[in-house]
């Protein structure tokens, strides 16, 4: 292996620090847990509209990060993932935008400035995330919330369609904050795209999703550590019991690995480093694994309260599992790593 290649300076620049602080402030202030709950879980009359309004007025402008360094986009998505921010920002900025750029599509600028949003349709009914000739695409995220659908087809090539013109039906799934749909592929002529550019877009989408999952894991870790410090049984905070502490330590190690792996992968993509392919798979495997690890451990450490609908924990549990299985679960990425090692 190449020790000499990457250096890795994980320190945030002042601008990155500011970006993170800004994102945190935005989400803390304007995306409270009730916003997500009222829109997707205990749906109130005003809930869905409020969530849509939050996306439209506060998140659209951030789509521009999709054209910039992946490191910055990942920083922002970690924060939006932590609060389960509503809307299609991830798929639009991290996946559709680079595909539209690759295709030289005229609407790329509109997606970048947030005036349009777009999703990506690629998987087939078996859940393979690879371009093909299938006539129905599955697991298309946020279909009902976007203006355009980018069909990624064999070639590779793309077909960009007005979302109002596609016929889709929702797939009932665990994570309601990221609705999934199946969509018939409409007729129309596709335009070829450079395979390397498609691979680049997939890397950005994968690392972006992994960054969200790091945010989900972080929320679960923080909530769990706070709870076990406060919950008393046998006259002691339950967080003082070693049997529980070690589970939390192991989950936190997984989380640390995931967070470092995602930052590293983002740097590798930005630098187009030789380690890039491996780093992206490592990032998604670690982040999906860690979010799931924290979801299980966090629920267990909360006891009965964690199993209630009222507690926000299950919202992250749903996203952790949903996110892991989107764009290849941890085991799928491990198999890709094995291919890099062995084939």
């Amino acid at each position, binding site marked *: *292996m190449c*020790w*000499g290649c*990457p*250096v*890795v*300076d*994980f*320190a*945030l*620049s002042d601008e*990155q620090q500011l970006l993170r602080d800004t994102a945190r402030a935005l989400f803390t202030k304007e995306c409270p847990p009730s916003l997500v709950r009222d829109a997707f879980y205990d749906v109130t009359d005003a809930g869905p509209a409020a969530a849509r309004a939050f996306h439209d007025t506060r998140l659209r402008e951030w789509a521009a990060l999709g054209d910039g360094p992946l*490191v910055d986009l990942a920083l922002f998505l970690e924060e939006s993932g932590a609060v389960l921010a509503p809307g299609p920002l991830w798929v639009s900025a991290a996946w559709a935008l680079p595909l539209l750029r690759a295709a030289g599509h005229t609407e790329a600028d509109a997606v970048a400035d947030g005036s349009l949003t777009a999703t990506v349709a690629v998987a087939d009914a078996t859940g393979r995330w690879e371009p093909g000739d299938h006539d129905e695409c599955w697991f298309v995220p946020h279909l009902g919330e976007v203006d355009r659908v980018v069909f990624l087809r064999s070639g590779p090539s793309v077909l960009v369609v007005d979302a109002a013109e596609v016929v889709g039906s929702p797939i009932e799934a665990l994570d309601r904050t990221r609705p999934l749909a199946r969509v018939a592929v409409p007729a129309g002529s596709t335009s070829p795209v450079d395979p390397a550019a498609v691979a680049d877009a997939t890397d950005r989408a994968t690392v972006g999703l992994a960054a969200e999952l790091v945010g989900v894991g972080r929320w679960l870790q923080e909530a769990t*550590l706070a709870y*076990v*410090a406060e919950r008393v049984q046998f006259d*002691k*905070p339950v*967080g*003082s*019991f*070693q049997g529980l*502490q*070690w589970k*939390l*330590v*192991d989950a*936190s*190690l997984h989380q*640390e*690995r*995931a967070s*470092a*792996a995602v*930052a*590293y992968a*983002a*740097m590798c993509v*930005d*630098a187009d*480093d030789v380690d890039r392919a*491996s*780093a992206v*798979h*490592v990032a998604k*495997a*670690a982040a999906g*694994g860690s979010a799931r690890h924290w979801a299980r451990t966090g629920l267990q450490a909360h006891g009965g309260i964690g199993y209630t609908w009222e507690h926000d924990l299950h919202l992250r549990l749903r996203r952790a599992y949903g996110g892991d299985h989107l764009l290849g679960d*941890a*085991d799928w*990425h*491990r*198999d*890709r*790593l*094995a*291919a890099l*090692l*062995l*084939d």
Partner: protein
Amino acid sequence: MKLSWGPEEEAFRAEIAAFLDEHTPEQLRDGRDWIGEEADEVPQWARDWQALLFDAGWMIPAYPPELGGRNATPLQTLVYQEELAARGVPRSVHFGGYGIVGPSLLEFGDEAQRALAPAAIRGDTVWCVGMSEPDAGSDLGSLATRAELDGDSFVVNGQKVWTSYAEWAERCFLYVRTNPSAPKHQGISVLILDMDTPGVEVRPLRHITGNAEFAEVFLVDAVVPRSNLVGELDEGWRITMGSLAHERGGLWLEGVGYAQRALDGLVELARDRGLAGDPVVRRRLGELHEEVRSIRALGYKGFASFAQGSSAPEHSYMKLAASELRQRLNEFGMDLQGAYATVTDPTLAAQGGRFQAAWQMSLAATIGGGTSEIQRNIVANRVLGLPRG
């Protein structure tokens, strides 16, 4: 965040790489994990190697030349540690002298004691470190080896155990209790003990590997001059913490380099055994690769905070993660060999029996230097801030 080395670091890297390629002794090449030879003393080639590193300023690069260094910056030290780790080359076959004793003497010793540091670091004097006792392992603060001040000398009675290199050592960095009535962490002192002092007896203990690398050390009325007290009387506990602070930023690299080389060996082994297409084997290799690389990323992340002078909680995780991973890697290397998994004959086992030998040694990695359980307690309390039990 950025991903590149500057030209200065690259030049530094080229220099150490060339040095290692030219001078590394045969015995330490090819990631051969040196298993202490059955020898009564440090082998001459190992002494020569350590002395050469020292004289060339490559022993502890952050130190000035008279201490075996070249005033390297933290980033250069990291580059240096990367190059050692990539090759799996140890600087010394006895860690205590340069890793613990030399730096502690420099930090806590008086002038005469500081003068002992260069020889400790160069390996001219072989040291052992006497901390653990039969009743004081993880709970080091309960150590009971007693040193009583009698005029100008201490009279020492007690027993140490698991003392690495005690058979080779000319001196011991000895942790003793000087004040039995003080609270346990406040009555400890550190003495420099000449191993040939009357009343000092070393009884070798064999590892499960069969090597006698560590020993029991018995002390019966051993007389140590008062001038051999390091630091203040009863304040030895502070010294347990002091070792190679400036290298802490990259000490994890050794574990990660080790893991990466083991993984490379596993890939080769899977191919040789015709298992490269086996889905279970592939899944497992992918998983191990994920772990090695994400742990490596974590180490670099910690280095970034270290280099900026902030505390790096990442480092608390590194020993725990690397030592446990090391066991899994080696165990898998054995499993891949089927019926040959437990065959230790180097002519029969794959890759010269490397995995079988390394697995046995890796079992010590989660015990020595603070057990995995203690590491988890440290993370729980100091990193996660969980309430103490």
